[in-house]
C-alpha cells in the first residue's frame, strides 16, 4: 500500500475522507477538477508523493478555474497562479502570495491504494 498525505493545513483534522478519483487520472504538474458533494475542487499533483487539493474558485473573479493555472514555486513554497489575472497562491495553505487579501480554500488530500481522497469538512 502506498499512502501519501499532504500536510493538512486548515485545522480540519476532522471531516470525511471522500474518494475523488483514481490516482492514474492525474498527471504531474497538471491540475484537474473534481466535483465532490457540490464543491469544485482542484487536484494538483506535483510528483508521485506530493499532492494538493484546493478550491477551484478564483477568489478574485469568482470563476471556477484554479485547476487550469500554472503550477510553480516561490522560494520553497509550491504555488499555483490563477489563469485569469495571475495572482499566485500557496498550494499548501491557500494563502495569497501576490495579494494577501485573497485566499483559496485548501483541503487535506491523500492517495490510498492508488485512489485519491480528499477530506471534506
Amino acid at each position, binding site marked *: 500500500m502506498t499512502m501519501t498525505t499532504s500536510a493538512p493545513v486548515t485545522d480540519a483534522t476532522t471531516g470525511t475522507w471522500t474518494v*475523488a*478519483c483514481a490516482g492514474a*487520472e*492525474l*498527471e*504531474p*504538474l*497538471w491540475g*484537474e*477538477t*473534481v*466535483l*465532490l458533494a457540490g464543491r*469544485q475542487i482542484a*487536484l494538483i499533483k*506535483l510528483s508521485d508523493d506530493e499532492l494538493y487539493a484546493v478550491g477551484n474558485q*478564483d477568489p478574485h*473573479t*469568482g*470563476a*471556477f*478555474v484554479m485547476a*487550469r*493555472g*500554472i*503550477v*510553480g*514555486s*516561490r*522560494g520553497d513554497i*509550491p*504555488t499555483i*497562479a490563477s*489563469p*485569469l489575472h*495571475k495572482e*499566485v497562491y500557496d498550494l499548501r495553505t491557500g494563502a495569497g502570495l501576490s495579494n494577501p487579501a485573497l485566499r483559496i480554500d485548501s483541503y487535506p488530500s491523500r492517495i490510498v491504494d492508488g485512489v485519491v481522497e480528499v477530506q471534506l469538512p
Partner: protein
Amino acid sequence: MTTTREVLIIGGGPAGHRAADALRARDPELATRITVISEEIHAPYDRVALSQRMESSVDLSLTAQTEWHPDHVSVLSGVAATSIDPIGHTVETSDDRRLPFDQLVMATGSSAPVPDIPGAEHIRVYRTIDDVDWLRDEVARLSVSLGRAPRAVVAGGGLLGLEAAGGLAARGAESSLVHSGPWLMSAQLDQGAGQALGRVIAGKGIALHLGTRPRDIQLTDDGSAVTAVRLANGQVLPADLVVFAIGITPRDELAAAAGLELGPRGGIVIGTDCRTSSPDIFAIGEVASFEGRCTGLVAPANAMAEVVADRLLGGFAEFTTVDDATKLKLAGVDVASFGDALGTTEGALEVVYADPVRGVYQKLVVTDDAKTLLGGMFVGDASPYAMLRPMLGAALGDEPGAYLSAAGGDGPASSELPDSALVCSCNNIEAHTIRDAVNGIGTPDGEACTELGPLKACTRAGAQCGSCVPLVKKILETELVKSGQTVSKALCEHFPLSRQELYETVRVTGLTSFDEIISTYGTGRGCDICKPTIASVIASQHQGYILGEGRAGLQDTNDRALANLQRDGSYSVVPRMPGGEVTPQKLAVIAQVAIDFGLYTKITGGQRIDMFGASLDQLPEIWKRLVDAGFESGQAYGKALRNVKSCVGSTWCRFGVQDAVAMAVRLELRYRGLRAPHKFKFGVSGCARECAEARGKDVGVIATDKGWNMYVGGNGGYQPAHGHLLVGDLDDETLITYIDRYMMYYIRTGDRLQRTARWMEEMEGGLEHVYDVVVNDSLGLADELESAMAKHVENYEDEWAATLRDPERLRRFRTFVNAPEEADPSHLRVPERDQVRPPTDEERAAGKGVLLSGSRIPVREGA
C-alpha cells in the same frame, strides 16, 4: 468682444508648419486665425526626412501637436503668394486672391541653386518631394530603357549631396560625386575627418572627384538626354542623370520686391525678435538671415518658429544663437559635427583620434585649459555625438580623451548632463524635460513615460532627425535606475537570464524539456512567467505539438486549452480565416455550430468570427465539427501570428494595384502557428489608400504599382504605433524572404511580451539596425534565420487536428475527472440582444441566469 487677428504664413515647410502649430498651442483663447499659403501641392511635410522618399512613396506629412480646426487654421496647398503689400497689409496669391493680414510670417525657405552652365536645363535638384519622386522613377525608367545601371553624377559634397548620391546608389544607380572642396563636407569637417569620410563613401562604391566642378553638361544630338558631364579639370564623366546639391538660395524674392531689408548674402534680415525691417512682418527658417547668414538646418527654423509664436501673442522670446550641429543620415555612414568643430576659437585645443585603417576619426575641441567643450567632429563612429553635443560650453568632468569611444573611452555618464543641456536640438528639448517626463512630471495625467516610444511622443525629443535618440534612451535608463525601477533583464526569480539569452541557450544546447532547462540554468519549479516563455522558445525552435512531451503544464491559460479563457471560466473559439476570406459554406458551418452549442458570436477586429461560451469539455466536440468542415485553429489564444488582415485589393476594388487577398492568404498560411515573444499581426492593403490599416500591424504590406512596400513595427493596443517603411517596391519572393528574416530576428532577440514596435525602439540602432540585418545581412544571420523559418513552415501542423487524433490529449479536455457527464454548474447564461451572455455579479447574486449545456436547454427570454 475681442476681434480675431489674421496671421498669414507664407510657406508650408517645417518652419511654417511649426509656427502654426506653436501659435495654436500658445493661443487657447483663439485670439488669432492662421492661414498658411503653401506653394507645394503636398500637405506640409518633413523635408529633413526627404531621402526616405527615395526608397518609396512614404508619407512624410508633419503631424501637428495641436488640433487644427478649419475655423482656426487653413492650409492653402498648391497656392503661391505672388506679392506682398506691407503698408496695405495684404498678400496676393496665384489664385488671384488678396488676403488681408494683421501679421505676416515669411517661411519661404530656400531653393536649390543651379549654375548657368551649358546644358543646365537638364540639371535636377534634390529639394522637394516632387524632385525626389521624379528621380526615383527616372532611375527605374532608365534601368529598363538602358538595360544597365543608370549613371548619376551628383555635384556637391555636403550633407545634401551625400544624401542624394547615397539615395541614388541605393536605387541601383552608379553614382559619382563631384565636389569643389578639397575633401567632402569641407564646410564642416577638417582635412583628417573629410578624408576619412571620403574613404567610407568610396567604399560604398561612389566615385569621388574632388577639387573640381562641372563645366558643362553634354547632350545627345537632338538635345533630349544627358550623355556626360565635363568637369573643370577636363575630365569627362559619362552620365544619364545629373543632380546638383551645391547649397541653398533663400527664397527672398517676394520680400525683396516688397522692399524688406535683405542680408549681404541674401535672405530676409531679422533681429532676435525674428522681426523683419517691417514691424508686422516676421521671417523664420531658411529664408531668415540672422547675423548676416541663413542656416540650412531645421533646429534654428523650429526655434525661430517658437519665438514668432510667442511674439505674435505679445511675448518677448528671443532667438539668440544658431545651433548648427549636424549629423549625416546616410545608412552605414556615421558623420557628425557640432559647435566649433574646426577649432577657430582663440587658443582652442584639439584632441584627435584617427584610425585610417578602420575609417574612424574623432575630434574634440576644448578651451586652452582643456576644461570646456567647444565642439566636436566624428566620422566612422559618431556614438559620442549624441551625448557630447548637449554638453557644448559645459565643463568636462574628465580629460577630453576619455570621451572618445574610438580611443576606448566610455563617454560621459548621462547623469553628468546638466538639467539645462539641450538634448534634442531639432525640437529644443532640454534634459530636465525628459527627466521630468520619465518621472511623470508635466505629462498628460501625470503618466510616467517609462518606455522610449511614449517618452518621444510626449516630449517630442528625438522625433525629427533622430540623432539624439541614443541619449534620450540613456537618460531614460538612468532615471529608471535612480527611481529604483531597475532595468534588470532577468526573466523571474527562477532564471537569471533574459528571454533572449534563454532563446540562445536553447538554440545552442538543443534542450527541449523544461525540467532539463531549469535544472541546468535556473532554480525552483518555475512559475507563470518562465514556464510559458520557455514553452514559446521551445515551440518556435522545435515546432513540436505544444501540449506534447511534458510541455502541457508549461502553457499559459489559453494555450493550455487551445482556446481563449473568458471571465467566467468558459472559452471562446476562433477558427482561422486566412486573409479574412471565408466561403458561404464554411460560414454556414460556423452558424450551425454556434446554434447547436448555444454560443454567442461576434466578429473580431481581425476579420474573423469569435464564438463565446464553450466549456472545456465542449471544445473537442466543437472542433471536431470545425476541423471536419476544413477549418483549423486560428491561434487566437497564442503568442503567435493572429491574422493577416487584408482589403479586397485589385481583384474587386477599382483602386487596387495588387492582389492583396492572395498575398494575405499566402502570408497567413506561411506564418500560422509561429510562436513569438508576443502575439503579432500582419496586414496587406491593395493600394496606398491603406484600407487594411496595415501600418498598424507588426508587419504591414502595402501595394505599389511596382510591388510591395514593407512596413515594420506597427501596433494597435494602448500604445499605438505606426509601422516604419523598411523597404519599398519588393517583388513577392523578396518580400517573403525579408519577412522571414525580420520575424525570426524578432523571435530570437525580443524580450518576453515585447511587441515589435517596442523591440525596435529599445534596440541599439533601431530601424537602421534592423534594415541592416534584414536587407544587408550585416550580422551574417540571413541563412540561419531563413532556414529556421523554413523549418517552421515544413513542420506546421494544426494543433486542433493533432489534438483530435490523440485520445490521450483529448483526455485533458474534461471539466470534472470524476463526473465527465456533468456540465459546469458555474456557466450560467442570460439573454441579451437575441443571444446569451454570462450574468453580471448582481444578476448572479439575484439568482438570475440558466445553466446551458450544449443545445440541451433552449434559452428563453425572462429566464
